[in-house]
C-alpha cells in the first residue's frame, strides 16, 4: 500500500510541473500544489477520507485506484459547483479531528479517523464550519464522489486499471467486441 502510494505521488509531482507551468494551481496558502483544485494538504485529507470509505484489503482501495485524482479533476470539471463545499468541508474535517483528538485528520490513526467520519455521517461533528454547513451533507458528497471515482470509468481519472471492476468479477478490459474505444483518452466533450 505504502509503495503504490509513493509511486503515485511521484507521478503526480511530474504532473505538477506541467500544471504549474500553466500557472493554474496556486493553493490558498500560496504554495504550489501538484493538483488542479486541491491544495497539497487538502489532497492528503481527501486521500485519507477515501481510504476510509473504500479501504484497501486483499483488493486495492480508493486511494490506490486514484480517487483523489478523480475528485480533483472533476472539481475543475463537471463537479466545479462543489468547490466551495470541499474547501470548507475539508477544513471542517480538521476542525473536528482537532476538537476530538487534538490532531489533524491525516495524523490520526485509522480507528480515530473512522470515528471522525462516523461523527460527520451522524451530523454530530464538532467544528465551527459545521455551524453553517451540514457535516452529513458534506460527508455524503464525498462518499458519492468516492464511489464514482472507484466504480466509474478509468477515463475520468479514478478506477485505475479497472481495479473495482476486476474486484467484483467483471472482465477488464471488457470482452465481446467492445474494444474499439481507447479508454485512456477523455471523452470529447469533457472538460478536465
Amino acid at each position, binding site marked *: 500500500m505504502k509503495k503504490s502510494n509513493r509511486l503515485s505521488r511521484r507521478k503526480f509531482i511530474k504532473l505538477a510541473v506541467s500544471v504549474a507551468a500553466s500557472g493554474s494551481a496556486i493553493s490558498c496558502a500560496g504554495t504550489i500544489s501538484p493538483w488542479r483544485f486541491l491544495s497539497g494538504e487538502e489532497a492528503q485529507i481527501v486521500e485519507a477520507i477515501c481510504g476510509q470509505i473504500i479501504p484497501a484489503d486483499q483488493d486495492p482501495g480508493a486511494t490506490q485506484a486514484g480517487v483523489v485524482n478523480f475528485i480533483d479533476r472533476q472539481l475543475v470539471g463537471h463537479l466545479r459547483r462543489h468547490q466551495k463545499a470541499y474547501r470548507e468541508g475539508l477544513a471542517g474535517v480538521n476542525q473536528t479531528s482537532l476538537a476530538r483528538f487534538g490532531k489533524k485528520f491525516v495524523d490520526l490513526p485509522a480507528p480515530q479517523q473512522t470515528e471522525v467520519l462516523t461523527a460527520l455521517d451522524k451530523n454530530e461533528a464538532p467544528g465551527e464550519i459545521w455551524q453553517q454547513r451540514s457535516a452529513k451533507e458534506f460527508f455524503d458528497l464525498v462518499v458519492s464522489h468516492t464511489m*464514482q471515482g472507484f466504480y466509474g470509468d478509468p477515463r475520468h481519472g479514478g478506477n485505475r486499471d479497472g481495479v473495482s471492476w476486476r474486484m467484483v468479477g467483471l472482465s477488464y478490459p471488457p470482452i465481446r467486441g467492445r474494444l474499439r474505444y481507447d479508454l485512456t483518452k477523455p471523452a470529447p466533450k469533457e472538460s478536465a
Partner: protein
Amino acid sequence: MALKHVNAVIIGAGAAGGIVAKELAVAGLSVVLLERGKWYSPFECRKDDLRNQRVTALGSAFGPDDERYVRVFVDANGQEHLVRPSEGNYHNNAACVGGGTFSYGALAWRYMEKDFRMRSTYGAVEGSTLEDWPISYQDLEPYYEKAEWEIGVSGDDSKNVFRAPRNKPLPMPPMPPSREHQLLKDTAELLGLHPFDAPMLRNTVPYNGRGACMRCRWCVGFACEVDAKNGTHNTVIPKALATKNCELRTECVAKEILTNAQGRVTGVAYFDANDRLQEQPADLVVVSCSATESPRLLLNSKSQLFPNGLGNRNDWVGRNLQGHAYAGAYGLFDFDVYDDLGPGASVAVCDYNHGNPGLAGGAALANEFIRLPYNFSTIRPPGAPRWGAAHKEFMRKWFKRHTAVHGPVQEMPVFDSRVQVDPKVKDYWGIPVARLSGLNHPHTLEVAKYIALKAETWLKEAGAIQTWLKMPGRGLSGGQHQAGTCRMGNDPKTSVVNKYCQVHDVDNLFVVDASVHVTNGGFNPGLTIMAIAYYASDHILTTWKDRKFR
C-alpha cells in the same frame, strides 16, 4: 425574416416527432423537422458509466446540456430549486435526434385494453383526475403493429395470457435466455404466474438492414455501438430524409408557435444553431417536444387571442404530469446469477397489471436492466453500511449474486402535478423555463407497495437468501416516462387535444407525444407513443387530402 413556406413543421425529433415526420414526408408533404439536440452517431458514443442518459453524475450524454438549460423545481415543502438537466429533479428525458429512443432501454409494450378505460374499470379515485381515453386499444391496434414492424420489435408474448389481442406476431424472436432469465422464468411458473419474453425494440436477428444485439453490459442510457437498438434515429427519420421532402434542422430551439388574427397557426419562431431567431411559416404545426417541453412551448406561445398560451383556455395545459412509480425488490443469492449477458431486462409477467384486490391498476413486473458496479454501490438492504470495509465486502460478495425485479406502477393522475412556465427564470435564449411542481397520489403508493411485495415473493421463491423492497417516494413523478400534460379528450373543458391529437380550438395545431396520454399504463410508454404518432399522422393526412388545412 421568414423562411420558405412549408406544409408542416414538426418540433422535436423524438419517439413521436420522428414518426410523424416520416409519415407526412412519405405522403408528399414538405416537412421541416426541428430538433434542439444533435444527431449523434451510435459509434462515436462511449459507454461511460458516469456520463450517460441514466447515470448523470458527470452530465447527460445525450442532452440537454447543463450550461444552457435550467428548470425550476418546487419540492414537497413548496421550496423552489434551480435544477440542471443532469440533476434528478429536472425530470429530463433527452435532447438529440431520436429523443429518448436513442438511448432508451427499448422495452416495447402495448398497453392493455383496461389501460384505456381506467375510470370505467375502477370508478372515480378521490384526488385524481383518473379518466378513460377517448380512444380504445382497438383503435390503436393496427398502429401498434405498424410500430412493431417498422421500428422493429423482438420478443414472444404468446405465453402472456393477459395480453390484448394482436393481429400479427412480433417480427423478431426473443433473445436466448440469460441465467437470471431462466431462474426467474422457472420460478414464476412454479408460482402459477405467466412469464414470457418481454418485447424489446432491439434486433435479435439482422433486421431493417442492421445487425443483431451483441448483448453488452451497457444498454439502458447508452447508445448502441452495433446499432441494434431501434429508435426513430435509425428507422423513420432516415426514411423521412430519403424522400427529400423532409429537412431535419438540428440544434434548433423552438421559442414560440406563431398565430394570426384569425387564431390559426402560421408557423414557428426558433433559434437556429447560431442562436439567430428564425421564422418558419407552415400550413400546420406538430408539437412533439415531450411531456415537459410541449406544454412549456404551448404556454410560451401567448398572443391577444391566446393570453394564457395555446390550447390553454381552460387551464389544462401542463396538468396531470405523471410518470411511473417504480416499485420492486432486490434479492441476494448464494450462487452466481449474473452471467454478463446484456441488456438485462428480459422476462416479464403481466399477472399484476389489473385485478389486484381493492386497487386501481398495477404494473408489469420484469427483471431490471444490468446494474453496473457504480449503480450497485448504492443498492443496499436497509441499515447496511454505505462505506468502509463492509461496503467493499458487500460489493465483492454480492455483485454477481444479486438480482432485481421491478415494475412501472400505473399512476393516478393528479391535477396539481404540473408543468408551468416560471415567471422569472429564463434559459440561455431568454425563453421562460418549465416550472415543475406536485406530488404523487397516495393510492399510487399503495399500489406500489403491493407490487413491491409481489416482486419480493418472486425473488424469495427463486431462492434469494435475503430480500428487501424498493419503493417510490411521494415526490413528483415524470422523468423518463413523463406523460399526461396535454390530455386527449372529447370535452374541451377537461382536455387539451381531441382524440386525433388536434388542439381543441386551433385546427392546424397538433400535440403528438407522451403529453396526450390520459393515463400511462403499467408499462414503459415508448411503443404507445409511437402507435399514437402513426395514428395521429393518419388523421392529419386524411384532413390534408380533404382541405389542406387552409
